[in-house]
C-alpha cells in the first residue's frame, strides 16, 4: 500500500489529469472528496472515505429482492438506484410465465450475489446471475459498510478477506455495494473484523493487526491454537 495523502474537497493535487474523485480547473487538479489521494502516471484520483454506492458495470453486488413483477425482479442494491434482474438473466430454463410463479426462483427478501450487467446514463441498473460466482445467499448474516471501504476489506488480491475466512472458518461474500454476507460458526468474529477494518481503513499494517486479533479471539473461544487445516465448507 503506497503512502496516500488525506485530502478534502478543493485541495490541490498538483498538475496532471483528473481521474475519479478529482476535477480539473485552470489546468490544475483538485480533490472532490474527503478521501485518500493517489497518483498514477499523472492521473490523480481520490478514494472517498464515505458516500453512497454508485452502481458500475461489472461490479459484484449483494442485492435483496424487493419486488417480483411479471418478468423480472426489482432488487435493492443499497443505492438510491434500484436494479432490475430480468428473467432472461436469472435462469437458462425455459419458463412459461403464464404457469410459473417467479417467486419459485427468487422471492421477497431473498439475498443474492449478482453482477451489474449494465448501467444507463440515467442510472437504470440491470443485473445478471449468469456469472459463475452469482448465487442465492441462504441464511447467514448481512452487514452494511461504507462502499468506499470495500477494497480494504477485500485486500490486495483478496488477501484480507481470505485471511478472515481462513481463520474464522466462515463463508464471506463482499459486495462492491457495501453489503457483506457472512455464514458460519464464528459469524460474530468475522463481523467484528470487518467492522474494525472499516473503522481503521486508513492505517498501515492493518492486515497483520486484524490477523493477530482474530487468532487471539479464536484461541480464547476454542481454547487452543486453531489449526490451519481445519475443515473448510
Amino acid at each position: 500500500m503506497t503512502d496516500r495523502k488525506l485530502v478534502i474537497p478543493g485541495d490541490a493535487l498538483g498538475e496532471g489529469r483528473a481521474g475519479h474523485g478529482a476535477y480539473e480547473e485552470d489546468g490544475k487538479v483538485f480533490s472532490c472528496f474527503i478521501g485518500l489521494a493517489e497518483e498514477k502516471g499523472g492521473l490523480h484520483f481520490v478514494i472517498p472515505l464515505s458516500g453512497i454506492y454508485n452502481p458500475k458495470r461489472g461490479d459484484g453486488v449483494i442485492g435483496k429482492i424487493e419486488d417480483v413483477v411479471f418478468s423480472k425482479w426489482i432488487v435493492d442494491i443499497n443505492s438510491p438506484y434500484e436494479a432490475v434482474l430480468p428473467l432472461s438473466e436469472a435462469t437458462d430454463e425455459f419458463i412459461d410465465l403464464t404457469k410459473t410463479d417467479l417467486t419459485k426462483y427468487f422471492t421477497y427478501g431473498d439475498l443474492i450475489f449478482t453482477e451489474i450487467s449494465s448501467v444507463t446514463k440515467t442510472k437504470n441498473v440491470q443485473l445478471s446471475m449468469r456469472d459463475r460466482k452469482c448465487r442465492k445467499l441462504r441464511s447467514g448474516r448481512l452487514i452494511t459498510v461504507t462502499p468506499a471501504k470495500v477494497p480494504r476489506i477485500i485486500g490486495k488480491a483478496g488477501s484480507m478477506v481470505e485471511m478472515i475466512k481462513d481463520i474464522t472458518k466462515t463463508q464471506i461474500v463482499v459486495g462492491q455495494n457495501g453489503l457483506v454476507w457472512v455464514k458460519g460458526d464464528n459469524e460474530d468474529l468475522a463481523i467484528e473484523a470487518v467492522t474494525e477494518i472499516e473503522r481503521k481503513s486508513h492505517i498501515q499494517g492493518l492486515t497483520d493487526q486484524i490477523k493477530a486479533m482474530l487468532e487471539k479471539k479464536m484461541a480464547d473461544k476454542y481454547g487452543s491454537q486453531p489449526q490451519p487445516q481445519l475443515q473448510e465448507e
Partner: protein
Amino acid sequence: MTSDFTRIDGRKWDELRPIFASVGVLNKADGSAMFRLGNTVAVAGVYGPRKVYPKHEEEAERAILRTKYNMAAFATSERGRPGTSRRSIEISMVTRNALMPIMFLDEFPRTAIDVHIEVLQADASTRCVGINAACLALADAGLPMKDFVASCSAGKVGDKVVLDIAGKEDTEGELDLPVAYYPKKKQITLLQMDGITTGKEAREIIALAAKGAEKIYEAQKAALRTKY
C-alpha cells in the same frame, strides 16, 4: 475606513467572533456538522443522494439540491413560532443558490440531496452560519464538491463599517450585508443587503465581508481535517 473604536462586544471593526466547527455530529444523517460564530449556532444534516419524493420533482439528468433553513422556536430571546415563515423560505432559497456553484449534481441523476439547517441559537448572521455548517455536512456525507463556500456578514453600526454583525449590532445597526464567498474562484455566491449606503461604500463592505469569509474558509478546512 480604518477606525480604532471598540464595538459593543469589545471586537475591532474587522474582527470575527470566535469560530467553532465540528463535523459528523449526528448519527442518522449521511453527513452533518455544527458551526458556531460567537453565540450563533447552527447544525446542518445532509441526506442523499437518495430517491426523490415527490417523484415529479426528480430530474432525469442530475440530482436536485433541496435546502431547508429552519430556526428553532427557542433560538431567539423571544420565542419564535415553529414552522416555516416567509423569511425562512427566502433564506432557504438564497442558501441553495449559495451552495449550487460548488456541487457536482450530474453525478447522481434522479436523486435528491437534502440539506437541512437548524439554527439552535440566533445572535445574528444565522444564514451565514447555516451555510458554513451545510458545506461541512455535504463533505461529511461523501458528496463530491469543488470546494467550500464560506459565509459571514459585514455592515454598519453607529455609522462605522464593521465585519460580522452580532445580535445587538443587528437590531441597533444601520446596515446588514451577508455574503457567501467561493475563494477558489473569487466569486460571491450569496449577497443580500438591507440598509442605506452609497455604491462606493457598498463595494468596501462587500470586500470586507469577502475577506472575513476567507478566514472562515480556513476554519472550515481545519474542522474537516481534524475529524479524519
